[in-house]
């Protein structure tokens, strides 16, 4: 069959027009498809707990909730969602946002204010200590944009079966540490996942919280904390220098391989350890107060929370869903399903009085060890700047004073 040029050109033009049609009408098509669907983006390990509470919601609203997996790193999460939002699109209706991403996204105008969405009963369920931090971490310009669903505070885990009592001070930690370290056989008193990308900052901020210092001021307290890490690594040799290339999974594995005697770790380690049934016993994962620094024991808290993107394809459905999963009725159910959702909310504490982490939370609160997360408006960048600078000292590339001065310069270059 032969085809004239004219026919060919006509056919090509029609084909091109047809191909372009879905592109032009894309958003409309997507929105139409999602009228009855609400997409929730959250880390995969939380999906089972979320799924368990969805049937009631779907039955009551006629909506279908679709779960999408999110990344675990707050900074990587920011990269992922900001790319979509900057392009004027959001594939998600409700998102679990980190401390690194939430405040920045709110400032950029990419999140929906939630003051009129979340009932007062839900806000009242949070303790005053958490509410005090809301304006900085969950709100902007007087409006609320994020509802916390996690209370991430690092705990001091230790091997009660090996050392009996946990060290109570920095000095005791070093002393006990030198007794139990057997570097030749790969046994270290303590360690942490402090690889580049914010994790060393997490550890240094934890130590700094025990000095009354402000890590973003790079003050004397920060200097003390940084020197302690350096000394544990290079002077007392109780902390493996290779930790600067270690992440949390590797850290946990070392602990469960009996290679580490005590460590700071996030609450999720409790679930990880309990899941390792062949190894776990309560004495192997005992929780104590962090060894006290010059200002006593301390550990800062932060965490992830739910947000609604300003460009959510199904805003009405999104509002219904976020209202539901943060409600006083559902929050305890989520906490029972996954320790990530355990928070000092009144509803959760009342429902889980015997939970190990709830008990530890109370112990830390009673000791005045719970400290607010160090704040900087450009949190992700500031964390990296501080970490980059102080790691120069930790890795022997600069003196402590030079590292602190470098950090101040890097922070000053960030502007606000």
């Amino acid at each position, binding site marked *: 069959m032969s085809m004239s040029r004219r026919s060919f050109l006509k056919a090509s033009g029609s084909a091109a027009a047809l191909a372009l049609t879905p592109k032009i009408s894309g958003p409309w098509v997507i929105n139409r498809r999602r009228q009855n669907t609400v997409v929730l983006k959250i880390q995969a390990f939380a999906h089972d707990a979320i799924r368990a509470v969805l049937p009631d919601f779907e039955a009551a609203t006629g909506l279908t909730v679709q779960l999408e997996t999110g990344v675990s790193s707050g900074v990587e999460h920011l990269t992922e969602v900001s790319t979509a939002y900057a392009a004027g699109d959001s594939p998600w209706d409700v998102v679990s946002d980190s401390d690194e991403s939430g405040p920045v996204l709110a*400032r950029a105008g990419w999140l929906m204010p939630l003051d009129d969405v979340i009932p007062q009963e839900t806000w009242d369920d949070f303790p005053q200590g958490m509410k005090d931090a809301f304006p900085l971490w969950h709100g902007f310009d007087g409006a609320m944009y994020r509802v916390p669903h996690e209370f991430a505070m690092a705990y001091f885990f230790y091997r009660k079966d090996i050392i009996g009592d946990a060290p109570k001070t920095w000095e005791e930690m070093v002393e006990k540490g030198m007794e139990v370290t057997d570097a030749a056989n790969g046994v270290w008193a303590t360690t942490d996942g402090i690889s580049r990308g914010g994790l060393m900052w997490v550890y240094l901020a934890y130590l700094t919280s025990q000095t009354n210092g402000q890590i973003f001021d790079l003050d004397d307290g920060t200097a003390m904390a940084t020197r302690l890490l350096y000394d544990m690594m290079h002077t007392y040799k109780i902390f493996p220098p290779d930790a600067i*290339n270690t992440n949390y999974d590797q850290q946990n594995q070392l602990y469960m391989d009996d290679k580490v005697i005590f460590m700071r770790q996030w609450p999720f380690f409790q679930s990880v350890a309990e899941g390792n049934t062949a190894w776990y016993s309560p004495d192997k994962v005992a929780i104590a107060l962090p060894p006290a620094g010059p200002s006593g024991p301390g550990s800062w808290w932060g965490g992830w929370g739910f947000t609604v993107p300003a460009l959510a394809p199904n805003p009405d459905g999104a509002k219904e869903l976020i209202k539901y999963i943060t409600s006083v009725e559902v929050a305890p159910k989520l906490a029972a399903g996954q320790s990530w959702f355990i928070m000092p909310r009144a509803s959760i504490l009342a429902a889980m009085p015997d939970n190990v982490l709830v008990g530890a939370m109370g112990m830390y609160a009673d000791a005045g060890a719970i400290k607010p997360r160090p704040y900087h408006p450009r949190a992700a960048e500031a964390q990296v700047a501080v970490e980059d600078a102080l790691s120069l000292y930790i890795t022997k590339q600069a003196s402590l004073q030079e590292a602190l001065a470098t950090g101040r310069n890097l922070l000053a270059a960030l502007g606000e």
Partner: protein
Amino acid sequence: MTHSVENAPPASPSRRKSFTLSQRRYLAAALLLLPVVALRLFTTLYPFIQTILLSVQKYNPAFPPREYVGAGNFEKLAGDLVFQSSIEFTLIFVFGSTLLQLIFGILVASLLNAKFRLRNLARTINLIPWAIPMVVAALGWRWLFDGTYGWITDLQTRLGVQFSWLIDPVGARVAILIVNVWKSTPFVAISILAGLQGVPEELYEAARVDGANPVQSFWKITLPLIMPLTVTIGMYMMVWQLSVFDLPYAMTSGGPGFSTSVLAYMIQQQVATLNYGYASAISVVMFLVVAVFGAVGLYVFRRVEVQI
């Protein structure tokens, strides 16, 4: 049945105004090419212009206003310690890797060009490192270099050498270089092997008759004849490796400190924190570096062109 021009019916007025057959062919060709050209321009020229425009702006959507800052981002780069370290390591990485890849590539190619049993098997085995995904290779080598559990550390400790590669700034840079050379040398070798197979055997025979030994043949015949190909591959490897990201990211995350941070990694970090203006300025610097490398390569390539 065909018509001669003389016998053709007179053209109608509307027909005379239409395109000639030749013009119509060009028009059709242009129309057919238009979508591809438009797509290509959209995916290359538009981002390029947008990057240039952003590089002279202070733009972070979370921290308005978006404003024109002229050379402000570039001035900031000049005083940025992380940028200085990144560009230093990027250049060390590119020059060091390319030089070593070419040296080892020529040696391996010469070996693979020799006649021996199981030569085809040896050529296949040579390609294995190149076939491994970079991130997988980086993670594997990271464990080999690990200060506590790494094989390399264990071996050197048995020899009495105490050194932790990845926590020492120089050691980490050398380790990354080693992995990159190990990973990409097979590709260079196989490319140069193709060039070696094109060198006429008669030249070697004539050299042997004149009393040249194998080393002299290599320096006087092989190397000059494969030089254009070597320069081309060298330039390709340099330009390609200038944008390296995956290897330092997976192996050291740019540490210890920021000693193994590279330009592409720095751009990723700036984009991640929404500093689009600053990230664009780094991209422009990177583009200029690539352009300079390309121009030098073209110049060198023309100088070494040979005729057989």
